[in-house]
């Protein structure tokens, strides 16, 4: 299951449980309610809740942290390096470093199931560098920041035409800013 679908289901189920608890608590306070007692030993209940909530968070933290982009594919040597420079309102992609005053746009092909490193920067304002697959699902991303180079490593599992969209608001042409590359 892709991450986005999982988090949507997780969110909607959690929100439904919270809404049901809220309704249950509200119903328990109606003037017509009988045989209800207010909460006994609230400190103990807080303690139990604290323990459970902390435990859930600690587990999620330990499971998810190693999946952070800073740790994945770091022990591998990239098979290909793609240089990316963003400008209002287009991306430049090349197989060699791009100089600020020498625009360069090359047709990029990267291998499937091999580690690719994108070295992403910007020559003007902050931009986003987000890669979408053929089903228009966001696969991975990083920021394009002037004066800095973000290195994004990824291994594409499916061949196809991948789109790039800008995901950091960069001005009136932000929504038009896109590019593409091929995974073979």
């Amino acid at each position, binding site marked *: 299951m892709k991450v*986005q679908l999982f988090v949507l289901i997780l969110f909607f189920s959690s929100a439904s449980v919270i809404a049901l608890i809220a309704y249950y*608590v509200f119903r328990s306070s109606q003037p017509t309610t009988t045989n209800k007692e207010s909460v006994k030993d609230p400190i103990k209940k807080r303690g139990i809740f604290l323990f459970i909530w902390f435990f859930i968070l600690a587990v*999620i933290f330990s499971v998810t*942290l190693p*999946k952070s*982009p800073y740790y994945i594919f770091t022990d591998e040597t990239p098979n290909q390096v793609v240089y990316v420079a963003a400008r209002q309102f287009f991306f430049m992609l090349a197989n060699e470093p791009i100089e600020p005053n020498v625009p360069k746009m090359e047709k990029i092909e990267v291998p499937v199931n091999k580690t690719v490193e994108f070295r992403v920067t910007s020559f003007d304002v902050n931009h986003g560098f987000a890669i979408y697959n053929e089903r228009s699902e966001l696969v991975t991303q990083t920021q394009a920041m002037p004066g800095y180079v973000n290195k994004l490593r990824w291994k594409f599992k499916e061949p196809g035409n991948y789109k790039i969209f800008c995901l950091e*608001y960069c001005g009136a042409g932000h929504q038009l800013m896109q590019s593409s590359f091929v995974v073979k």
Partner: protein
Amino acid sequence: MTTLSLKKTTSAWIITILVLFIIAISFGITMRFNQGRDINLNPDTFYSIMTVHGVTMIGIWSCAGMMAVNYLLSRYVKTSVKLNVFAYAFTVVGVLMIWASTLIGKFHAGWTFLYPLPFRVAWAKWGTPLFLWGLTLLAVVWLVWAIGMVAQILRNYSLSESLAFQHLSRTKTPAKETPPFILISFVSLIGIIICLVTAAILMALLFAEYYSNGGFVNDPLLVKNLTYFFGHTIANEALYLGLATLYEIMPEVSGRPKFKTTWYVALGWQLSLFFILTAFFHHLYMDFVQPISFQIIGQMASYLASIPSAVVTVLSVIFLVFGNKIKWNIVNGLFFLGVTGWIIGGIGALIDATISNNIVLHNTLWVPAHFHTYNAMGNVLFSLAFFFWVGNEFVDSKDYSKFNKLLLALLIIGGFGFVIMFYIGGANSIPRRYSVYPKELNLGDILATLGGAFASVYLLAILWIFIDLMKKCIKVFSSAR
């Protein structure tokens, strides 16, 4: 002690905030209908509206929290009406400057004005300095206001008492009690002071570059950290100020004993100040050049911030209500619904604050989804609850109106329907802050139209509340005592 002049100033705040809120919601609905291609705005008009929508919403709900705390503080300490009037007057000036820069000057760098976008002028040349000076004015005025309120608290409570340190002992009964309202207001105001000082430093750096004609250039990563430290903290502290009013008002309008400061309430709120000041790193997860330790702190602090909120505040509200016969009315009803919305939005926030999720959710519609949930269905409802409560004070009545079922339905259907469209959009990789969506992402169009329709239902509820409140707010100006 509340005076007539304090009531009049509070009334002026409420009228201004609600008028600005209605206009800002209308801007938001306009944006959603443009994204749905139901109307057709120029991109620069869209992004100008987006900028003014964001800055207005953050501004008015921060002010709503501050002015509510200012009003309630007068129960415990001597407050200055002059300071309150000063804050009101200059806030209006600051808002007018920002609105002129965006709506007339077409400044459209977004409310987060992420450096160096404000300097890539694609609008009237005066737009950038007017926007930045407008924000600077607001930051300085609110800083003075927050420092003033902290000073007023410190006249009656020592620093240690304001932070409720004497309550940390589980065995000794403290000689002097710090009410939860004082503790939460103090902690939140300290957070606001820290973030506004940061805003002032940020503005100084931006002005240094702007007026040096290229002689001084900022570091984009440093400025981004400062920007999000300011933006994240002010948005969260505004919500905490709303919670301070909840602690003070909800028990008394529900016919229940007042909340007391216990060791865990004291500890929880002291810790939340620390966590909230370090959670902002989650805004920079996708900047891989940021030290990894900061990214880990970001996820850890975002998770830990939920613990005092859940274990202290949420459980206190549940224990207040559960199994007790509550006199439900519009005030405690809005507080209760607001807590529910706040928790649901908090779950959305925790999901996004997880780095491995953030890589596919960052700057998608998931972001406005979660912050609109805990604002529109959380913090706004806390402030509206205060408005209804203080509206009764204006007319010397303790008879709070019932929560009209149709109004409740409009709020729930409109509010949650509106944010659900954002969540579905975020999970489908639809970017935020696009005036229109590219053809590959045209699922965003229909979600935007539906979101706009639901937001219009929410707006109806707010108009209803506005009309209801105006009767009481206007009355206070003709009152003689």
